[in-house]
């Protein structure tokens, strides 16, 4: 029999010390959820249990930390887009949005109107997709495998449409500084319309079986309640803040690209419990579908890439922007500090770029919504029952790769 490679005593001593520290003055036991646990995601939660009640949750994130911020240093600016979108692949159109906005400020580029609309279209489709993905995981965390399978099936339609329009299913890298990489064709407009119609049709049964299910409602209503004050203090962003009645949405407050010209209402709920957080995202799916329809109706005719870029590239001749990406190797951002802010599916995403006078960046700071919601998630778990832990976890749509970056 081979010997176990690490010293058994050392390992357990560490944990026993940790347990005594965690239990200080409390009764009960410490349950370690994760990293190899069906309900933890890529993280570890130290759950202090008093019987069935959770008295304290200590999160231990960082298992999928890939050092995006460090990798971004000393790296050509256009390579940030494929880099950042890996943090949240379902939400790739949204998570790269602030990067693109910041780079446009740094380079002094202005996308033509059609490109602005197309970016917003992709961002909204991506939002629907991410919400469906989170809904799927919420379903499986409550034990509802049909909700999981159906949402995953529906979100796969979006992957198919993304593959047809942008060429890739998830990591689309669609928006680039100064425009988008591919124009959409009339057939694509039909395709997206068909996609939205099919989504709506399929979501009807999904609503009956999952959201209207009395068991789901019993599991989510009144669980993990946070009021508006707590939400503001904990710095919660996105739909999870709006679920507690905080009316804040970057799309409305600081409209970027085409959002200022579109007519939409943001979804706000009052209750602040897990059900409200789910319902806000459910209503946002329909808002996004509505926005996408508006865009398809009023898509302006123009180029999809900034003329300044085209001018610099005499070789530009074929359909799309073939050859344009090569122009980035000739143009340089201004020295300075630039920021970009966008409403990703899970909330506000903020990017700060420190450029040098070369194409390589000095530093990038990326603040993702999941990271900001982690604290609130842990607060919301406190005082709930053990079975509520996964429900609260996924009602915050917590996505460890996005938080750990």
């Amino acid at each position, binding site marked *: 029999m081979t010997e176990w490679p690490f010293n058994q005593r050392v390992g357990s001593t560490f944990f026993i010390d940790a347990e005594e520290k965690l239990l200080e003055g409390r009764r009960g036991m410490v349950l370690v959820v994760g990293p190899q646990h069906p309900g933890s995601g890529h993280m570890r939660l130290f759950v202090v249990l008093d019987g069935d009640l959770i008295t304290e949750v200590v999160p231990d994130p960082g298992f999928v930390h890939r050092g995006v911020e460090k990798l971004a240093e000393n790296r050509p600016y256009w390579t940030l887009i494929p880099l950042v979108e890996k943090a949240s692949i379902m939400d790739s159109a949204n998570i790269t949005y602030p990067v693109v906005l910041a780079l446009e400020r740094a380079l002094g580029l202005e996308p033509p109107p059609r490109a602005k609309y197309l970016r917003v279209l992709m961002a909204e489709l991506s939002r629907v997709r991410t919400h469906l993905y989170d809904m799927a995981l919420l379903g499986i965390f409550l034990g509802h495998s049909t909700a999981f399978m159906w949402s995953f099936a529906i979100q796969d339609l979006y992957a198919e449409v993304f593959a047809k329009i942008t060429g890739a299913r998830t990591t689309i890298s669609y928006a680039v500084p100064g425009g988008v990489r591919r124009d959409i064709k009339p057939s694509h407009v039909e395709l997206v319309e*068909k996609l939205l119609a099919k989504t709506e049709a399929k979501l009807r049964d999904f609503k009956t079986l999952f959201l209207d299910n009395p068991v789901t409602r019993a599991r989510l209503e009144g669980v993990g309640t946070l009021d508006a004050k707590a939400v503001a203090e904990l710095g919660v962003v996105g739909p999870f803040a709006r679920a507690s009645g905080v009316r804040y949405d970057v799309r409305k407050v600081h409209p970027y690209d085409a959002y200022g010209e579109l007519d939409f209402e943001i979804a706000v709920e009052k209750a602040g419990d897990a059900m409200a957080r789910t319902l806000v995202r459910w209503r946002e799916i329909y808002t996004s579908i509505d926005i996408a329809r508006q865009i398809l109706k009023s898509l302006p005719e123009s180029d999809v890439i900034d003329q300044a870029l085209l001018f610099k590239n005499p070789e530009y001749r074929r359909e799309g922007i073939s050859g344009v990406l090569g122009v980035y190797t000739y143009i340089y951002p201004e020295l300075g500090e630039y920021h970009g802010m966008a409403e990703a599916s899970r909330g506000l995403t903020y990017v700060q770029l420190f450029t040098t006078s070369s194409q390589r960046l000095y530093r990038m700071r990326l603040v993702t919504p999941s990271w900001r919601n982690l604290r609130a998630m842990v607060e919301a778990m406190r005082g709930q029952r053990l079975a509520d832990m996964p429900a609260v976890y996924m009602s915050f749509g917590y996505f460890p790769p996005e938080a750990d970056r």
Partner: protein
Amino acid sequence: MSIHVKLFLTALKNLAERQWTVRWPEERRDYSPAVRGFIVNDRAVCISCQLCEAVCPAKAIKFHLEQDGKRYPGIDWGRCILCGYCVDACPTGSLRHTPQVEITWRSLSTYKFPREMDPDAVSVEAGGRSLL
């Protein structure tokens, strides 16, 4: 009570739904010709400008000298993320995507910078089963 009956009926109704699972490889998903798949290089058009190497975010492209005295790009498929920047940067259109999205290699030595980026070698057709 009526809601539970409705739940059962919804479930039973969906027994008749067509399966969304695609039985790969007998069936393929519908990828349009626009999909960013395996990248090929048309050597007749390639001007060896090395822009693709310059824009590659994953540093997956390296140029190598060929018999004809020209330098051509080779892709390290262990690094390539199929972002398509090289294709979009190519000023002549010699680099292009093919609809082949299933890319596997027999061994480590063959997937690093394979020289065969011949467009004629890829015979995968676009199209397949669409879920829409």
